[in-house]
């Protein structure tokens, strides 16, 4: 997978490039929209990460131009502005997702993967998910661990499903709030953590190895 990174801040560009390289992505870096337009015309990138504030042409104009030229690769917008309006404007002008600075790298990675997955057309959505001895039946709304049915509330099931869909990837509290509660801001108290702890109680309590792991300072990951 080849990513085009359009970002003028050298430090941010460098840490993103290194992080993405470590995850096995090929990364091209353009410090301005003008440079990026040259690169993007080659049509070799699977996704773009675009900062809004750039010298010269700004990121949103760049995205619009790309779309006008028929570039269909998914684009993730990075911005320091975080009002709903800004987000909507970014998406309206051709972006596929919007991430505000400061962000957790794990979150950027997770969102990028979602975009790449969406870009590759898949068959019908699986009706079953499984990680290790955990099985989730999406049609029957049932979760089993080692053959034993877990007594989950509706919300806990959604939460577990979300973790399972992203198995192996770290999800941040913001992502959880966004997907499970449709909330785009983080409360001042640890409400999400408590939900995760309760879910973990039900999923991991009687098992010999844990599936839900806390990544301190970042979020949670479900892995076998």
């Amino acid at each position: 997978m080849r990513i085009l990174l359009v970002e003028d801040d050298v430090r941010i560009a460098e840490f993103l490039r290194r992080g993405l390289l470590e995850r096995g992505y090929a990364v091209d870096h353009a410090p301005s929209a003008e440079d990026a337009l040259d690169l993007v015309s080659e049509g070799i990138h699977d996704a773009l990460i675009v900062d809004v504030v750039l010298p010269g042409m700004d990121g949103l104009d760049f995205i619009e131009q790309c779309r006008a030229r028929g570039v269909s690769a998914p684009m993730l917008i990075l911005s320091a502005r975080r009002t709903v309006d800004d987000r909507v404007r970014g998406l309206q002008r051709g972006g596929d997702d919007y991430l505000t600075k400061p962000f957790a790298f794990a979150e950027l990675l997770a969102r990028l993967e979602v975009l790449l997955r969406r870009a590759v057309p898949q068959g019908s959505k699986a009706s079953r998910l499984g990680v290790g001895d955990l099985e989730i039946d999406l049609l029957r709304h049932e979760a089993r661990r080692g053959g034993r049915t877990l007594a989950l509330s509706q919300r806990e099931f959604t939460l577990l499903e979300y973790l399972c869909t992203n198995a192996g990837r770290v999800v941040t509290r913001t992502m959880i709030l966004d997907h499970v509660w449709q909330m785009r801001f983080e409360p001042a108290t640890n409400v999400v953590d408590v939900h995760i702890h309760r879910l973990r109680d039900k999923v991991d309590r009687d098992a010999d190895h844990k599936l839900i792991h806390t990544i301190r300072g970042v979020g949670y990951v479900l892995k076998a």
Partner: protein
Amino acid sequence: MFSRLSTVRHTAAWRLSAMATAVLALGTAAVFTAAFLMLAANMQRRGDSWLDGETASLAEMAAAAPPEALKQEFAREAQELTNERHSDRSKPENAEESVVFFALLDRSGTPLLVHAPPTWREILPALDPPHIRSGPPRSVAVAGYEYPMRVASRALKDGRILLVGESTSGDQQLLDEIAQSLAWMWTGVTVCGFAVLWFGVHRVLARVNTITEVVAAIEADQLGRRVPTERHRDEIARLVATFNVMLDRIEASITQTRAIGDSVAHDLRSPVTAIRGSLEIALTTPDDSQVRDRVASALEGLDQLSALLDATLDTAEAEAGALRLRRGWVDVRALAENVVELYLPAAQDRGLALTLVAPAPVEVWADESLLRRALTNLLDNALIHLPPGCHVEVAIIGGAEHASLSVTDNGPGFPAEIRDRAFDRFARGRKSAGTGLGLALVRAAALVHGGTVRLGQPPAGGSVIEIEIPAAAPDPPTDA
């Protein structure tokens, strides 16, 4: 002196006065000149009509009467006129000039009969015969005489020419005097006009100068200064009042900004210190698992920092009314169910009972995200401040005009020291662990929706915070 003058010349008072004076001077000059010219023309017309009449009657007489009789008539007329003029204006030194002359010439221009003072004979060479045969009165300049004379002539049937002339010196002297007085009057009007204008404009603009001086003297550290108010109630007084109101607002806003800056600085310092400490330890510790732990803790600190920054900006924006509401129909009950469900486990962990009382769906035209934010802030507040064992009740009640969202608890209530300003930014109890921003945003959210928020104390103890917002938008919902 010169530099002072050149500074004066750059003032609006100078420019206005100079311009107005110029207009005044030009105007009066035009009026005076017109009056003078009309007067002069009038005087000449009067003289000419006398000359015409005189010439006509003498010509008639010359045709019929013998030269002797004509000569007597000339003398009589001249005497009469001289007397008349002398009684009119006693100006002995010019008496000679204020005289008429009569002459009868033959067809070649040779004088036949002349009645005139001796000096006037010089006039005859000045009268070029071909031009004097006949014609209306005209001015003839004579060498040695200051003023021209008016001469009328008439050719008789037998070819002789009758000339009647009159000196214009009397009229011209009168006109000169009038012109001189007009010039003096004009100078007086111009000078007085300029003085009055300068004084008036200068006085008005001096008040503007005071405003300039005060405003220029206002530095960031002495915002308390105000432009002195005046007894007048004119435009400038209104300007002064407006300036003072503006200064009030600027002072309030700067004071507030400073207070916020102080609080933010204070709030940022603790997490920054903690992050710095964590990273320092990470750098020096040899134990790898310790390093990871410290870095993770630094990351948590950074998240806190960025959340605080967000909260500060959101609240400031909401309070400044800069938030653009994204309104839609919101079921407050569904919203509250969702939020309470999110908070229930955390509340239970803290030993708090959290219940929702919402008998029916309540629809309002509002910004869902902002309402959700307000409710989560209220619940965050409850979770942070209430001791275990308390009961928190969220109640949603719909009315015909308003929807009410309240959070009631039976805890210790708000500390007395902040009860009056609980909704102000950075209002915090002494032992509070919060940011002091939560309730400020709650109030801002209520206000931008055109609603109200109040803090009450139920008789049974504890506290209640109630948000009331209009059920529907007061104006047409254009900002959806």
